[in-house]
């Protein structure tokens, strides 16, 4: 796929995802410019994950996806898997929620990190292997050369999610989509992984689409926020403004819930 000169990175317009029993994602629209950091927040079942998956054509086969998803001005909906796979992991990469299950259990993590590099950049096995070790170092794995040779079950949850981030950022994507990347981790590890994500995004000037149910997480890492409920966007705006003065009662409720949790923790 050729990269157009259109400056807008991603334009989602009237996205509808339907499994046949009513829309699960209902007319969702948003726009991202290069380097934008956008959060989608909402309770489970609000359609936030499905929205993200639909952007890269990964919604389940049983779903009908309509509307428009434009990448640099080019329509992505309806394109074949073959065409989309050139974009996936290269220009748009994803980090998944559960690092316990999102890594192949029988493949050394170094090879998993090297895979997108071999796929998209055509690196040789040894060059990609060396790059993988370097990425292990960059995401803060102890003893990177050895870590690259480990199997996922030999790493802790936090370390595995660092591997997930290394895989996603291997090809220096223009957009990183993270789906609850820290939910499966405990609080201290959560903060470390979030900080790492923040640094890497900054360093590479990548755009970020950050999906979470936790308001406490979005304020540090995103500039713009979309609040989703039952498949629709109920409110959107700059993160700081939305958190300080929510307009929609649902947003207020989410923020109040996050404050209560924070108080409990303190």
């Amino acid at each position, binding site marked *: 796929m050729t990269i157009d000169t259109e400056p807008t990175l991603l334009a989602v317009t009237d996205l509808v995802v339907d499994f046949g029993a009513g829309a699960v994602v209902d007319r969702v629209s948003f726009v991202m410019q290069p380097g934008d950091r956008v959060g989608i927040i909402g309770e489970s079942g609000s359609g936030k994950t499905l929205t993200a998956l639909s952007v*890269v054509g*990964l919604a389940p*086969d049983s779903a009908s996806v309509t509307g428009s998803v434009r990448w640099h001005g080019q329509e992505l909906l309806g394109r074949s*898997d*073959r065409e989309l*796979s*050139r*974009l*996936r*992991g*290269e220009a748009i*990469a*994803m980090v*998944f*929620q*559960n690092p316990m*299950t*999102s*890594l*192949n*259990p*029988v*493949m050394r993590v170094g090879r998993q990190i090297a*895979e*997108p590099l071999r*796929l*998209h950049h055509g690196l040789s096995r040894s060059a990609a292997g060396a790059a993988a070790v370097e990425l292990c170092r960059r995401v803060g794995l*102890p*003893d990177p050369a*050895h*870590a690259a*040779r*480990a*199997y996922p*079950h*030999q*790493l*802790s*949850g*936090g*370390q595995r999610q660092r591997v*997930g981030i290394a*895989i*996603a950022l291997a090809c220096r994507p223009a957009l990183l989509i993270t789906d609850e990347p820290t939910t499966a*981790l*405990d609080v*201290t*590890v959560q903060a470390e992984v979030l900080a790492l994500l923040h640094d890497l995004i900054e360093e590479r000037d990548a755009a970020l689409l950050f999906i979470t149910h936790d308001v406490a997480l979005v304020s540090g890492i995103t500039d713009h926020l979309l609040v989703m409920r039952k498949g629709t966007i109920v409110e959107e705006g700059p993160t700081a403004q939305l958190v300080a003065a929510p307009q929609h009662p649902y947003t207020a409720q989410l923020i109040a819930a996050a404050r209560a949790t924070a108080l409990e923790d303190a």
Partner: protein
Amino acid sequence: MNATRAFGRIVWRTWPGRLGIVFVGMMVLAALVSLVWTPYDATRVVPSDKWLPLSTTHWFGTDGAGKDLFSQVLVGARTTLFVALLSSAIAALVGLTLGIVSAVTPRHTGEAIAHLIDILIALPTLILALVLVAALEGSLWTVSLAIGFGSGVVLARVVRAEVARVLTHDYVLAATAAGSSTWRTVWRHILPNIAPIVIVQLSLVAALAVLAEASLSYLGLTPISTPSWGRMLEGLQQSASVHPWAIVFPGLAVVLATLGFNLLGDGLREAIDPRLHTRVATPSLAFNATIERQAER
């Protein structure tokens, strides 16, 4: 090369793996040795030497025609090994192809193939072998084809279920999200994850093939020129009440070959699945993992 050696060492570490290697190794050795050397010509008939007991000149004694039994067992290993390997290879080809295609193709095609598999499974392997041998000609290829195909369709059903299970895992979605094509995902992520089960199934196919070949030879359905343990058993059992020791050797050979393939399958399964051997990559990583796990509690 290094990886292969490490792999072998892991198989060797378990008792089933070790016994499997020994038994199958003995059979391979017997087959290879028989190509260059046997104490006597396995087909040489010496009427004056019939029913000789075990001795230093005839290790396993001789049969009713005076043929050396040790030589016959050695040569018979070739037949058994050939059928076992060829049957497993055919079963792997049929099982993996049908199973994977039926699991990853769009729903209707996949289900059609699944129904086809169910119908094919209904054909009993040995009967299929008998029919094929009768229709074509009794060659080791025909026998292997029947055993391989019959076991292959059963394997296909196992593979289909396994692939369907693996497909639901996040790492398959993650691989797709990283730009891996369907067939690349099958090759790099799905196959390695179903390999342990396929290997065990294939070792069962090999074990079954040993028994099936012995049965078909016993029934006289393999070419008469092919030396085989089953054919030996058939010839020797008629005089078993008078010369009971003779029948022990080909019988033992069949048992050890069957057992060997089964045990080897067990050992390979453990070796191929890194989650089953709890080796830790480095002390530092293990230490960190422990610390983080404690922190998570």
